[in-house]
């Protein structure tokens, strides 16, 4: 859906200094918002600043954020993957099925990751192999993957996961730091390096900015995109292991609507939905903001659906405000 802007492009007379660029960046704005929300929350509820409560709060975003890292790369490359929540459901169902066949914990992990990779490969093949638009393909696979879980499970549920399987979603690495949080930090580092320090990351930006130019510059566009969808599938598989382990059961409606939250997180993190720009630190901050907001509201007994209104308003306003701000400044300048 990317298209050229009709307005002329303004090229500044001199470039901004590094310092002012950092100060004016989206990430610093997010940091301010995060600190603000943290402060408001600690005043609004006396229970907020408890280390264990804060640790619990991280579960609100760790699973989604892990997917959001891979989704950020997909969106930067100018594509989108709306099927992630359904991949979670299908992986979880596959693991449940494996349990009934007597699989042990390592086997379950293999099944979960394998299903995620397989789903990602299906998306990637349809999008890069057949050249189909990712938004429609992933709407299709979103129905297909969850539909398969419904066929397998119907109105039943899988439970009876082995006790050792509970570690992924309920275990703690050290003091209040959960296994999921450690995984979140690890993936934040891995994806930061991948996007910002490797040739692969540069290729992702190049594709998002101008696919044709990237192709003519020797970037293997199809292969890079295929890997991105594979990665997203893999991350959804990992998230599925964590979520299934945390809940201890599988229903076909597991993680319903999570794709919206993941996309919101990515866009809130400053990734352009049109592709070509965005950073992983931005997504990390957005994950913290969304997690803190939902947790703070939870402590204040605000129902989940009202939180979703807030997230929706946040999503639109974080994109609208800079545009309005730039316009107001232009008006003042004239």
């Amino acid at each position, binding site marked *: *859906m*990317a*298209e*050229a802007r*009709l307005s002329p492009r303004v090229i500044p007379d001199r470039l901004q200094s590094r310092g002012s660029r950092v100060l004016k960046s989206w990430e610093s704005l997010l940091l301010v918002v995060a600190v603000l929300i943290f402060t408001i929350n600690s005043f609004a509820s006396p229970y907020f600043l408890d280390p264990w409560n804060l640790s619990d709060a991280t579960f609100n975003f760790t699973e989604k954020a892990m997917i959001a890292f891979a989704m950020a790369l997909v969106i930067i490359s100018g594509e*989108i993957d709306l099927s992630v929540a359904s991949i979670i459901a299908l992986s979880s169902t596959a693991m449940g099925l494996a349990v009934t066949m007597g699989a042990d914990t390592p086997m379950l992990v293999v099944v979960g990751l394998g299903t995620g990779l397989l789903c990602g490969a299906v998306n990637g093949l*349809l999008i890069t192999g*057949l*050249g*189909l*638009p990712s*938004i*429609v*393909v992933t*709407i*299709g*696979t*979103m*129905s*297909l*993957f*969850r*539909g*398969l879980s*419904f*066929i397998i*499970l*119907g*109105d039943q549920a899988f439970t009876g996961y082995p006790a050792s399987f509970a570690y992924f979603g309920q275990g703690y690495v050290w003091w209040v730091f959960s296994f999921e949080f450690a995984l979140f930090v690890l993936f934040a580092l891995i994806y930061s390096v991948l996007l910002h320090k490797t040739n692969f990351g540069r290729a992702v930006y190049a594709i998002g900015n101008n*696919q*044709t130019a990237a*192709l*003519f510059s020797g970037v293997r566009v199809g292969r890079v995109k295929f890997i991105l969808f594979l990665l997203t599938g893999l991350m959804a598989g990992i998230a599925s292991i964590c979520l299934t382990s945390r809940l201890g059961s599988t229903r*076909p409606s597991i993680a319903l609507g999570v794709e*919206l939250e993941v*996309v*919101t997180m990515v*866009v809130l993190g400053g990734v352009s*939905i*049109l592709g070509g720009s965005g950073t992983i630190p931005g997504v990390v901050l957005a994950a913290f903001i969304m997690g803190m907001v939902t947790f703070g509201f939870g402590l204040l007994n605000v*129902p989940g*659906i*009202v939180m*979703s*209104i807030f*997230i*929706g*308003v946040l*999503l*639109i306003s974080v*994109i*609208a405000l800079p*545009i*309005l701000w730039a316009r107001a400044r232009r008006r003042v300048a004239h």
Partner: protein
Amino acid sequence: MAKILKNREILLVIAIAALLVAITLRFPGFVAPANLARVYNDTSILIILALGQMAVILTRCIDLSMAANLALCGMVAAMINAAFPGVPIPLVILVVVALGALLGSINGLLVWKLDIPPIVVTLGTLTIYRGTIFLLSNGAWINAHQMSDAFKALPRAPLAGLPVLSWLSVLAIAAVYLLMTRTPVGRAFFAVGGNPHAAVYTGIDVGRTRFLAYCLSGALAGLSGYLWVSRYAVAYVDIAAGFELDIIAACVIGGISIAGGIGSVPGAVLGALFLGVIKNALPVVNISPFAQLAISGTVIIIAVAVNARTEKRKGRVILKKAEAV
């Protein structure tokens, strides 16, 4: 022959006919006229919604908030009726259509005036509209006994052999068809989606056209809101949750290009009917209703693959350009 196979509408008619034949082999009663009328009636709401979504997709946008808009308007209709049973039903419909158009215009304004990508806007308003239903109703249901008889009866009332619901969808099809083919704004939808830059040079305001498309989809969602709530005689926060995907699926199956500019009213209607026949046939041929989601997913993928193939063969390549923009 090759030309016929490239024509999406004819292809769909053949597909639907083949589907009907296959069902009839297992269950002859399915193609009885009375049952077909029932299937059409059951698909009416999807058809109305697909017409609105089509206008939006034609202009290179997308409206993910339609189902949430429908649910909000349906809840408002039910609440008006529950609180003031004396208000005439046409007035209630008028109010929710206006409300739907207003909600659609919010999407349209954000896309037009602020240049926010449509998918982000409607993803945001989707959650906002859904949440607003909760704020209005406090999560409570409005059940059949709280609605007046007239409120529930209208879509079911028979008129010349078909329920009013079916007639309303026929009316909507005719109106949107005329709009698309006989009015400047209808042609503008195609022009904007086909080539926004060229549209600007022909004097079309791209943003305003998109705004109008969103108003249309909103108004149709508002109408569907009343129809949905009165037909199923219940209103709650989650009605039609996830239905936005069915609407988009109907459009994609109907050959409306997600890249904008390509599509037709008969295509959208047939796409919706195709889904409607599948949905109604599953229980008849003893396939678990749980399979429906997976089937519609598969159909979407096949349809988009077919779309891509037909869209590719468009004249001669004069200026060699790398694939996909």
